[in-house]
């Protein structure tokens, strides 16, 4: 099976360009993400950042009187 893979890869014309292409894809995606993040609206960012706190941000529980025994 490995031989099968090896054989096929060498038979692809111009495969040397693949690594360079992958780097370009990676890098431009990364740059695009960064641009997107820094142009996001502040209100939207705050809204998402508060998601973990939405269902009951009651911590620390030990200050919660109904739990005191």
């Amino acid at each position, binding site marked *: *099976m490995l031989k099968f893979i090896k054989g096929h890869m060498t038979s692809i014309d111009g495969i040397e360009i693949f*690594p360079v292409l992958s780097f370009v894809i990676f890098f431009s995606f990364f740059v*695009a*993400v960064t641009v997107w993040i820094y142009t996001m609206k502040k209100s939207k*960012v705050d809204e998402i950042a508060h998601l*973990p706190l939405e269902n009951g941000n009651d*911590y620390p*529980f030990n200050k919660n009187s109904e739990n*005191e025994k």
Partner: protein
Amino acid sequence: MELEKFEYDNAIVKNFIIASAVFGLVGMLVGLIVASQLAFADFFNDNFLLKYISYGRIRPLHTNAVIFAFVGNGIFAGVYYSLPRLLKAPMWSKALSNLNFWGWQFIIVCAAVTLPLGMTTGKEYAELEWWIDILIALIWVAFGVNMFMTIIKRRERHLYVAIWFYIGTFITVAMLHIVNSFELPISFMKSYSWYAGVQDALVQWWYGHNAVAFFLTTPYLGLMYYFIPKAANRPVFSYRLSIVHFWALIFLYIWAGPHHLLYTALPDWAQTLGVAFSVMLIAPSWGGMLNGLLTLRGAWDRVRDDAVLKFMVVALTCYGMATFEGPLLSIKSVNAVGHYTDWIVGHVHIGGLGWNGFLTFGMLYYLIPKMWNTKLYSQSLANTHFWIGTLGIILYALPLYWAGFAQSLMWEEFTAEGALAYPNFLETVTQIQGMYQLRVLGGLLYFTGAGVMVYNLMKTAAQGTFAATEADQAPALPVTYTPSTNEYWHRVIERKPIQMLVFSLVVVAIGGIFEIIPTFLIKSNVPTITSVKPYTPLELEGRDLYIREGCYTCHSQMIRPFRSEVVRYDPVDQEYSKAGEFVYDHPFQWGSKRTGPDLHRVGNKYPDSWHFNHMLDPRTMSPGSIMPAYPWLLEDNIDYEMLPKKISAMQTLGVPYAEGYAERAIADAQAQAQKIVDNLAGDKIKTDKDKEIVALIAYLQRLGTDIKNKDLTK
């Protein structure tokens, strides 16, 4: 808008928490035992000489237990708790949740049975045999399906950053596990890696490093981004930074693997690539750490008396330390000092004990009072745990840093006359015995702390009432969504989880392929050496015993091109290890740690009788040695009947044995064994050709000798 009512399943979270705590204690206990075996070798050799608890077999048990059982169950506990709450939807399938839980525990039990029995693939952190690998893949997919279906059925449009980390974890771990586990089974108990030598090493460390990245780091970062805001009661310091953190990490991590193979026979371009990406990794890692710590701004007073926050602060600090050390150790000149020494062991334990351990503890101290509707049984016990745990980490790591530097400097020191200052490797081992003993103390403290925590949490659970479900309500997402006209493209991806799954898989796969394909493509990357021939059947059998006993956990087979190494390990010919010497090694056995000396040129260095006596009791040949004895090798029989199968398997993998050689394998092996038996008889040692020791001697005497057949080398 109409609110829909639904319930989160806490029972599954509880199960994973119990499993994580129990297997955590077990994994740490096994760690204590292996550390003691090195620190008090004589005691173990004299009193506990049992093959099933031999160092080479249970060190993999320790690493697997801690990584996949303790941290693995910790990941599932955290994900099954946070994911539904962040998505405002219960987990999609209870059946899949339960399959995930029981399947994972079954895998752990299989590992706990097979590793002490010596069933191992011989690849670090991927030791489990082929059928367990298949189970792991299936259970992991069950987890992934459950997660993605929950994402699809969600009631919250935005995916919080923690979920991104979970998705990245799922995809990458699946890919790494499958690619690294390509192996050819020859029986229920035994398989051979598809890859050989340099290729196997590259795939293995691409897997090994990314197991650290995507099993021990990214899922825990997801948990960090959920539980720190929860415990600090404020949103993350910078949500924007958390997204950059995520993309930069997965962008960089996947290429960093070769830094485990610096100065080895790996092609130079791959080594340099690994160094460059590893050094860059410090940026997102420290960005993430600071993001976590700064989340506590305005809440630092609470760190003083809140156990959850204390554990999380130390966890983040250790994450920062480990990710500073990582890039540092990836620089070639630093790596030359640190590689193969205890520095690396100290480094990974800052990550394991500090980052993974303390974050898990923090999470448990948060979750158990929460799910049992009570408060923590004892804050002071939690504080005790915190302090002895922290002291344990320090007492664990510092002695090993010291030991690592001391040993490395001793390896490299030459006298004014140009000879090695410490020509006997053993001197460099006995020198650091005290450090090994201190390390046991550190481990013991940490383990005791974990025990205190389990007691505290059990008392907490006993005083509360467990809520198996938690009710919540939220409006359903509108079926048709009209995007605003100036919507960003990233938001579009975010809304389409399946497309995002495929897209991220492609992105990660490209990184992996880039690193691996060239070695498949370019023949010149692994120059062939004409004098290097396949192993004889008996040597192959001996090699399997070497793998079974986990010799690679203490011995490398990779002499780096340094004067100090070639003079030490090959004083006559001074040959370092060449890529072409490993082309028939399925799997490669380069190792990553030298608790004992390198063995790549051990062939023909000592007489057969030396090896025989040394395996019976290493201390007779090397007084003061901390190596375990292997008396069972002298008593157990070689399974000659398996040899034809093993030879055919090697032929399938491309090892050039002559057509039909499999049928002659047994006769050939027995003839070679008889020669060794006769040779031993000359030194007044009586054994017979059926004993395993004979095969092991055959393998050890072959190691690294092919290159010396000058007549055959062009």
